[in-house]
């Protein structure tokens, strides 16, 4: 039974469990909330995606608020794809006044990957710059370069009340080539990321190498664990979900199984057991199979 919130659990070196929930495409939040209820007491934080895969959905901020009201500790995912710096800063202030403290900063999949491919991609800031913005908001200042009276400002305007956000970012320990990804990882730490949720981890040897860098920097790492329902679903993810790669050996293991979902749950549970000794927690991405996350946790013995 999980007692602490996300940040406290990480700071007290517990093995932290987070899961990813997607807001509905529409206003019916019943399934999302029902999935969350089944996770009550079993996870430290619930990530809420921000128009994931560039598919328009209910806003992450509103969904985080609903979860917060129901006693969960939401992790507000915010991407750089859809909003310029004014909107991003403003939304972060909104999160703060709603009591949403955890923020996961992402670049965001390009609109052409999603259901509004004609949309203008914004990327006014990138994820590293957005982390710097959060650091600044936490200091009670914003990114503005001049006052409302037109006077130049060097370090932004002083806010009437700053934020106290706990910012994190994403890293892919299996990126190929790895070194440019490690650069970016270092930069994100320097910019103020205090935790990282990784893309799905499969190769433990490479993950151990990556953890070498992470330990040096003192960054908290939650390893990504992906739940897939079948070999075909894994292949679909490989083709259509940017940044996620299910290795062929895993696909092959799912293929002959009479009940591939059960096999998938078992593999995810085992993966969590392997990761337990290696990092600070796991981040479970079930992509439409959120109902089965409790079974994964059972399998992992958590």
């Amino acid at each position, binding site marked *: 039974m999980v007692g602490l919130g996300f940040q406290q659990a990480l700071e007290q070196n517990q093995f932290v469990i987070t899961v990813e929930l997607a807001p509905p495409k529409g206003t019916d939040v019943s399934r999302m909330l029902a999935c969350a209820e089944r996770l009550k007491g079993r996870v430290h934080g619930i990530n809420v995606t921000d128009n994931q895969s560039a598919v328009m959905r209910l806003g992450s901020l509103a969904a985080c608020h609903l979860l917060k009201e129901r006693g969960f500790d939401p992790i507000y995912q915010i991407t750089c794809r859809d909003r310029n710096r004014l909107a991003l800063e403003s939304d972060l202030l909104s999160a703060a006044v709603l009591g949403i403290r955890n923020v996961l900063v992402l670049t965001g999949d390009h609109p052409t990957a999603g259901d509004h491919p004609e949309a203008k991609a914004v990327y006014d800031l*990138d994820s590293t710059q957005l982390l710097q913005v959060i650091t600044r908001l936490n200091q009670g200042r914003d*990114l503005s370069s001049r006052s409302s009276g037109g006077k130049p400002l060097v370090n932004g305007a002083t806010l009437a009340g700053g934020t106290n956000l706990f910012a994190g970012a994403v890293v892919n320990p299996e990126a*190929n080539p790895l070194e*440019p990804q490690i650069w970016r990882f270092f930069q994100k730490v320097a910019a103020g990321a205090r935790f990282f949720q990784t893309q799905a981890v499969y190769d433990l040897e490479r993950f151990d190498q990556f953890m070498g860098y992470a330990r040096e920097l003192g960054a908290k790492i939650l390893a990504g664990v992906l739940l897939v329902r079948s070999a075909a679903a894994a292949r679909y993810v490989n083709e259509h979900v940017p940044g996620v790669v299910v290795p062929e050996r895993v696909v092959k293991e799912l293929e002959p199984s009479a009940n591939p979902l059960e096999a998938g749950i078992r593999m995810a549970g085992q993966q969590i057991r392997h990761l337990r000794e290696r990092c600070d927690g796991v981040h479970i991405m079930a992509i439409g199979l959120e109902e089965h996350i409790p079974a994964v946790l059972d399998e992992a013995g958590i």
Partner: protein
Amino acid sequence: MIITRPKPFAEIQSALQGKEKIFLIGCGLCATLCQSGGQEQVIRMRDRLVQEEGKEITGLAVLEAVCHVLRSKKELRAHRAELSASEAILVMACGGGVQAVGKLLTTAPVVAALDSLFLGNIERFGQFEERCSLCGGDCILNKTGGICPLTACSKGLLNGPCGGMKDGRCELDRQRDCAWVLIYERLKATGGAEAAALTIRGPRDHSQGLRPRRLVVDRPGVEK
């Protein structure tokens, strides 16, 4: 150079509807190299408009560089009679060229025959690649190994590859190299990789490239 491509013929047909006497203008510079508005394409357009559409072509001119307003004005003087007899001017040049002609000739509508695409390098004959977005000042090439991420990265990121990079290729097009992997390799080969890795490049100043842009160069020895 400015890369252009012919508009679909149906669009040109529709823009010229009801106009029977047409003057054609091509461009001797970019549109000639793009094979979209040079002598050869202008003549082909003339033949097509005459044979398929029954239009009357009052005349044609391939100007040295249509966007050079001063020079184009001089060159078009020789065609004054033909132009005044025309009901429409079809310009086979970039958007800058079309508007240059529009400024010079105000009695008949100016119709664009091409779509303007980008500032491109000629990699080989007929193959053009965008390397610079003319983003409007504050060029960062000296900080990124001479490769522009605002152009080569489809998200225009300034601080390294996004999570969509896979085997060194871009999320949007798996055939295309990730700009930040190219920058990383270039910096590793030429030095400066470490410094670049440790530097967080700040947000762009978009107030530097407000449109429309204008530049007036002071000429030495010329009194203002």
